[in-house]
């Protein structure tokens, strides 16, 4: 290993720590500090504001639905991509990653074009059957699903590759059915990957802003999520409430990070 000379080492350390401190640590710290600038008042005020409460409930509902859908879809697609061969597999596996690099605004626009009730491709037909998608929770769930789509798959696929299918074949040779093999062999070995994926998806889903802003219509008290409330409150000069709501979102996302950091086993060298 190259061991850098001591002055260089300190310089690099200073650059790394300094950059992260000024860009991330200090600003986040300031928001936390401002949340508690009046003791707990900001938080309790925010938590007694019906607009905030409603938004938090809606956010949680949308995020949970999105995570459940992505969990089923993600684990299923991962198994299909790793354990089976079929035409178009490579294209599919490349397309799966697409949502990570599509702008949330483009996601919102794309869903709007297809599902709006006025001139969308599918929207009017759905609405005539009583299913409103845009400006309602189904659209918000879809937008959230879209942006968080690859997160579980990206965690599970490498693990499935790594464990190989020896154990599954052994189980089958011992007489286990496909279902038994999945629940008793495959799932336990990808368990932690699924957990990281879910935690990351949850953090992403609770925090989605741009795509949800477009498809929800941002109707106060009806389709306004926590992130939209932060924007609205800040722009309405209710900054204390904006800070307090942000603080709650920061706590959730940092908790997610800590959970993943602790759960993820150290890479073996």
């Amino acid at each position, binding site marked *: 290993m*190259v061991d850098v*000379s001591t002055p260089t080492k300190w310089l690099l350390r200073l650059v790394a720590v300094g950059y992260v401190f000024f860009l991330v640590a200090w600003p986040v710290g300031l928001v936390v500090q401002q949340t508690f600038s009046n003791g707990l008042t900001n938080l309790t005020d925010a938590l007694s504001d019906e607009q905030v409460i409603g938004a938090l409930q809606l956010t949680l509902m949308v995020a949970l639905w999105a995570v459940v859908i992505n969990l089923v879809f993600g684990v299923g697609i991962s198994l299909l991509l790793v354990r089976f061969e079929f035409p178009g597999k490579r294209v599919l596996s490349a397309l799966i990653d697409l949502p990570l690099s*599509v*702008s949330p605004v483009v996601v919102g626009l794309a869903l709007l074009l297809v599902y709006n009730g006025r001139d969308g491709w599918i929207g009017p037909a759905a609405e005539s059957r009583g299913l409103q998608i845009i400006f309602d929770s189904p659209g918000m769930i879809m937008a959230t699903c879209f942006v968080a789509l690859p997160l579980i798959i990206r965690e599970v696929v490498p693990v499935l590759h790594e464990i190989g299918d020896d154990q599954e074949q052994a189980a089958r040779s011992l007489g286990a059915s496909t279902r038994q093999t999945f629940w008793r062999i495959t799932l336990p070995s990808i368990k932690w990957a699924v957990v990281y994926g879910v935690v990351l998806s949850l953090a992403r889903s609770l*925090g989605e*802003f741009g795509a949800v802003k477009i498809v929800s219509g941002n109707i106060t008290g009806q389709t306004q999520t926590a992130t939209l409330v932060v924007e609205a409150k800040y722009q309405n000069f209710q900054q204390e409430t904006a800070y307090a709501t942000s603080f709650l979102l920061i706590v959730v996302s940092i908790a997610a990070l800590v959970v993943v*950091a602790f759960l993820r086993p150290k890479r073996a060298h």
Partner: protein
Amino acid sequence: MTSALIGASAAAGPASPEGRRPRRVRRTTPHNTLTRGAGLGLGVAMIWFSLLVLIPLTAVIAAAGQGGWSGYFDVLRNDQTWAAVTLTVSQALVVTLVNIVIGSIIAWVLVRDDFWGKRLLDVIIDVPFALPTIVAGLVLLSLYGPNSPLGLHWAFTPNAVTLALAFVTLPFIVRTVQPVLEELEADVEEAAASLGASRATIVRRIILPSLAPAIAAGAALSFARAISEYGSLVLLSGNRPFQTEVVSVRVLTFIENGNNQSAAALASIMLAVALVVIVALDVVQRRVARRG
């Protein structure tokens, strides 16, 4: 001797496929090994994936195509849109360059250095990934906005755009370079040293070339994210036309004005950039895999 046996079998593993690699024949018709249950599952998954991703993205391209080439041209010819495009692209490039340097340094420090608080630094790097973008904007306002304890008033200036993009793209290069740096074998550097290479030469001729694909991959992701960023800019940049307005905001303005065709035209350009990035990443990864 057991260690000899382990050594031999470990070497036999990688050696044999590598020997074959140059002559490997690509299958032209992939096998189909789907069982009935798996086929059904794939069908359901594909319907959902189409409804969620493929059809909506196609709709963007279709809507953009309604105006034909002249539609694209008109959108880009609009001064305000063009200003947004140049601002976004130039800021994304600046931020990506900063990330290439700083991200590599942070990855180096995380892997090769050891000091009190390193673990904390490692966790903080991921904060921009986990934080909702609107909160990211708010967070940056607290240090760089009107009430800045540093006396900086960067809100609503182009600096604010740089800042927001740097914040949300911080983890990309760090997280792509870090694992590659961890996997670099110490003996390769020792071999170079025993051949007379100085530290600087080892970094330049051995370490950096090994990290280059990871840096390129991280840079591509960072660039793609930067040009598509929206949420963190809302509160911070003020979206002032010709000064701090980025492409995403332009798209949103078009949507709010009911001008879906222009929105789609601009959005489809962003989509194309995203696609280029994905293809580039795939190419880089294949190259690296061949290097072994």
